[in-house]
């Protein structure tokens, strides 16, 4: 086995750390060398070893850049024990035949051809896997495997270990309903297209006869064949429109599908009449063509929605498993639904409390951030009742369950109406309102036109009636908004800005002021170097600290280790890491503690000033043999390039900074924001109040935070955006997720939203103009139903094309060129 060497990163002369061969991240904290390649962490190195031992290094060749995902992201040591429970297996597995199982997993981290390659060659990694198939657009993997050789739990653990952790949910992973709709839509298009082509073929004689009569029997044959072919189109292909129109009518609203349905009915009835009465060939070709084009439009529309969907809803926060403490003292992982009152469970650091329970043992520090927006942990003692939904911060606690876990309880917790801000798009509301008047107006105009032409004969009158009904197409109105916003949402997604709903784009366009959080948003948490503050450290002390710290993978420990580069390290006699508190170790006869002030024994009077608002990540105190030496501080650096962004933004928007931190960064921020716009030491409640005040005054605010301790403020703002390094995590309170490296594009994003709204207005205008022109011709009797039937889908397509095209153009102009848009 080739030697693995560890090293503290020495910067090269250009100051750049080498990139990890597996995941592409810079190896800034650790640099592991293997076979001449650099890896940023053990996780990446392990995956590489696995692939290389199975001769699957094609994984790396298939993509430009490093395709890997570091498996150390996300929670480590996740217990999959509950996957042994047959009830759970039942819910996850699609199909089983003896010991062969098949299940579909949602794997949101797959992003490229290499991922497909690796996942479809899963059978090479482990015996027992029969086959694996990827559906990339849905980010799903369907695996068939032998349960006897490989239990479900191990399969999931395997996937997690290579960086493709499945997102498990006990709800149906993908509602079968959606698949069925898509399929049935395609089938309806197929039938309509089939009918369209064949009817046209059979209509050739009529087209080419140019006045002369077609041979009697043949003419009858062709006409009735057309009739027969049009029937499935009317009854099957047009069904979505019928059901939508009737649903609307039953609810006493006239929605946009009603005029379309009337038009279709009119066309069919007129054509049926003409054929049966022998008066003419009817317009079955137009009917079939109309439906064909309409349905295609619908498919396109649905594809746009499906192309990017903010799939993760709050159900991803429902804990699936809990650690049951059995009478014998053994810990077992069980599904949350099996917890009965009286059961004892253990909840560890960062785990969710799954059910209302009484605290038996341990210090409860519960963070109810997701529920109330307050991230200040609530302290609870033995005997206190703890409500479900909070997250334990600190050491593990033992609880006794009071109530069974019901999903509806948790749903209600998170389903406060502030979380489900269903603000419908202003333009959709407008379109629906217009459509009501529109339909009434059209019916009036149609009747008027009918009466107008009645003196010229019944045939002509019906002809004009159908022409008017069909040409008046409000469908363009209905399509403009969803297509524009849907396209905008999809394009923004490619640039790292993921929206919950298309309507957020509209709200973004109305923004006039922006409020920023500081820690984690403007600054990258823990990005700087560890600085020592305190007594001078001699060689011995440095060696002691180095020896202890290298046994920890905590980010702070790595930074401290990096700052103490070079020099010796002793072997430790004992080292213990208590998460949330610190490290305790015995080395070379000395007792060393590294960690929080309380852990180390430092108190407020210690000469090095103690800032309680510092996030615990940034500070580590050190004490040797009970004597506090001082501490390491990791400064938070402002994200590179951000100062320019803020400066640009300040010309167009009112900027404010509300931060929970102290004003230590004031000198850097004051020139950018203006001193009066900086607010420090704001707790979550103050942030919320600040936003609410401004919103009530009518200002439309965009709040940008990290989604953790500003959940309340994010909810209250017109648009709340959470900045995150890892876009697979999700905060229920926000309207959108902004990838950290896309923060510098904020101004472009806002411009683009404004352009998108302009595009909606343009599309409305086009649709209006079209209707005006079409109706005038139709009423004048100059428009045949055939032409109007063609014009209708043409108008829809024009509006869709214009909306999508203009939006894409706007994106290219505002957000970046073609090469920046990844496929």
């Amino acid at each position, binding site marked *: 086995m080739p030697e693995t060497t560890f090293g503290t990163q020495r910067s090269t002369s250009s100051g750049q750390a080498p990139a990890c061969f597996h995941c592409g991240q810079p190896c800034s904290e650790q640099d592991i060398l293997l076979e001449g390649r650099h890896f940023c962490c053990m996780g990446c190195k392990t995956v590489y070893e696995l692939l290389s031992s199975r001769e699957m290094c*094609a994984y790396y060749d298939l993509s430009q850049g490093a395709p890997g995902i570091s498996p150390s992201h996300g929670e480590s040591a996740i217990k999959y024990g509950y996957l042994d429970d047959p009830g759970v297996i039942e819910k996850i597995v699609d199909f089983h035949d003896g010991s062969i199982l098949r299940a579909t997993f949602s794997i949101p981290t797959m992003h490229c051809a290499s991922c*497909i390659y690796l996942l479809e060659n899963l059978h090479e990694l482990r015996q027992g896997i029969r086959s694996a198939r*990827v559906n*990339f657009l849905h980010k799903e993997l369907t695996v068939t495997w032998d349960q006897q050789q490989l239990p479900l739990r191990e399969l999931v653990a395997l996937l997690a270990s290579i960086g493709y952790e499945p997102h498990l949910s006990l709800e149906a992973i993908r509602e079968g309903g959606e698949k069925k709709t898509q*399929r049935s839509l395609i*089938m309806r298009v*197929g039938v309509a297209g*089939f009918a369209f082509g064949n009817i046209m073929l059979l209509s050739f004689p009529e087209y080419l006869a140019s006045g002369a009569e077609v041979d009697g029997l043949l003419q009858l044959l062709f006409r009735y*064949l057309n009739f027969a072919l049009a029937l499935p189109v009317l009854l099957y292909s047009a069904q979505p429109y019928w059901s939508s129109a009737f649903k609307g009518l039953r609810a006493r609203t006239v929605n946009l599908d009603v005029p379309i349905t009337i038009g279709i009915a009119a066309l069919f009835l007129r054509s049926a009449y003409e054929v049966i009465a022998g008066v003419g060939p009817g317009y079955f070709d137009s009917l079939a063509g109309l439906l064909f084009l309409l349905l295609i439009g619908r498919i396109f529309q649905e594809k746009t929605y499906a192309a990017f969907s903010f799939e993760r809803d709050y159900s991803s926060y429902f804990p699936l498993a809990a650690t049951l403490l059995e009478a014998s003292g053994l810990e077992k992982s069980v599904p949350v639904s099996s917890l009965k009152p009286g059961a004892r469970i253990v909840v560890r650091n960062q785990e969710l409390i799954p059910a209302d329970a009484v605290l038996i043992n341990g210090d409860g520090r519960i963070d109810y951030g997701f529920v109330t927006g307050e991230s200040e942990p609530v302290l609870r003692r033995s005997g206190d009742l703890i409500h479900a939904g909070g997250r334990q911060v600190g050491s593990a606690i033992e609880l006794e369950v009071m109530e069974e876990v019901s999903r509806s309880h948790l749903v209600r917790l998170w389903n406060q109406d502030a979380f489900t801000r269903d603000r419908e798009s202003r333009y959709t509301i407008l379109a629906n309102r217009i459509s009501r008047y529109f339909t009434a107006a059209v019916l009036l105009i149609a009747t008027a036109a009918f009466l107008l032409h009645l003196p010229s004969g019944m045939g002509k009158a019906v002809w004009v009636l159908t022409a008017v009904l069909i040409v008046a197409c409000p469908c363009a109105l209905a399509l403009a908004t969803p297509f524009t916003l849907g396209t905008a949402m999809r394009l923004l997604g490619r640039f790292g800005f993921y929206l919950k709903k298309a309507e957020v784009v509209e709200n973004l366009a109305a923004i006039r002021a922006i409020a920023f959080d500081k820690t984690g948003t403007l600054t990258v948490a823990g990005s700087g170097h560890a600085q020592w503050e305190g007594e001078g450290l001699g060689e011995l002390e440095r060696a002691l600290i180095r020896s202890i710290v290298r046994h920890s993978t905590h980010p702070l420990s790595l930074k401290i280790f990096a700052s103490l580069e070079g020099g010796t390290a002793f072997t430790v006699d004992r080292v213990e890491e208590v998460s949330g508190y610190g490290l305790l170790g015995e080395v070379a006869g000395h007792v060393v503690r590294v960690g929080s002030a309380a852990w180390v024994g430092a108190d407020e009077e210690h000469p090095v000033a103690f800032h309680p608002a510092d996030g615990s990540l940034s500070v580590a105190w050190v004490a040797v043999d009970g004597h506090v030496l001082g501490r390491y501080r990791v400064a938070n650096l402002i994200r590179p390039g951000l100062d320019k962004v803020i400066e640009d933004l300040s010309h167009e928007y009112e900027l404010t900074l509300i931060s929970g931190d102290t004003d230590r960064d004031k000198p850097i921020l004051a020139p950018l924001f203006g001193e009066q716009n900086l607010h420090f030491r704001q707790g979550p409640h103050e942030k919320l109040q600040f936003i609410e005040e401004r919103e009530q005054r009518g200002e439309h605010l965009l709040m940008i935070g990290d989604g953790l301790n500003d959940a309340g403020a994010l909810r209250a703002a017109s648009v709340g955006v959470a900045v995150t390094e890892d876009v697979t995590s999700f905060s229920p309170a926000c309207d959108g997720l902004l990838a950290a490296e896309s923060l510098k594009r904020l101004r472009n994003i806002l411009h683009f939203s404004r352009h998108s709204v302009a595009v909606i207005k343009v599309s409305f205008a086009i649709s209006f103009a079209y209707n005006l022109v079409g109706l005038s011709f139709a009423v004048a009797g100059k428009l045949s139903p055939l032409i109007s039937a063609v014009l209708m889908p043409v108008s829809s397509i024009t509006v869709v094309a214009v909306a999508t095209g203009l939006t894409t153009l706007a994106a290219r102009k505002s957000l970046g060129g073609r090469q920046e848009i990844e496929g």
Partner: protein
Amino acid sequence: MNVIFVLIGASLAVALGFLAAFLWAVRSGQFEDGYTPSVRMLFENRKKRNQTNTIEQTNQNSGDMDDAG
């Protein structure tokens, strides 16, 4: 000229057959995923790790074209 009735009947029958085939394909999931096959076809066939003679390997290769799983 009356043969045209037969011809039309026959062509309609063929067309209906194609329609049926299309509907069957949709229902069996052919159109579910339009993207992944385009990536999948660019992968190289891996050499089988156990010993197989060339004939089996060729069969394996052409067999890989079919839909698995």
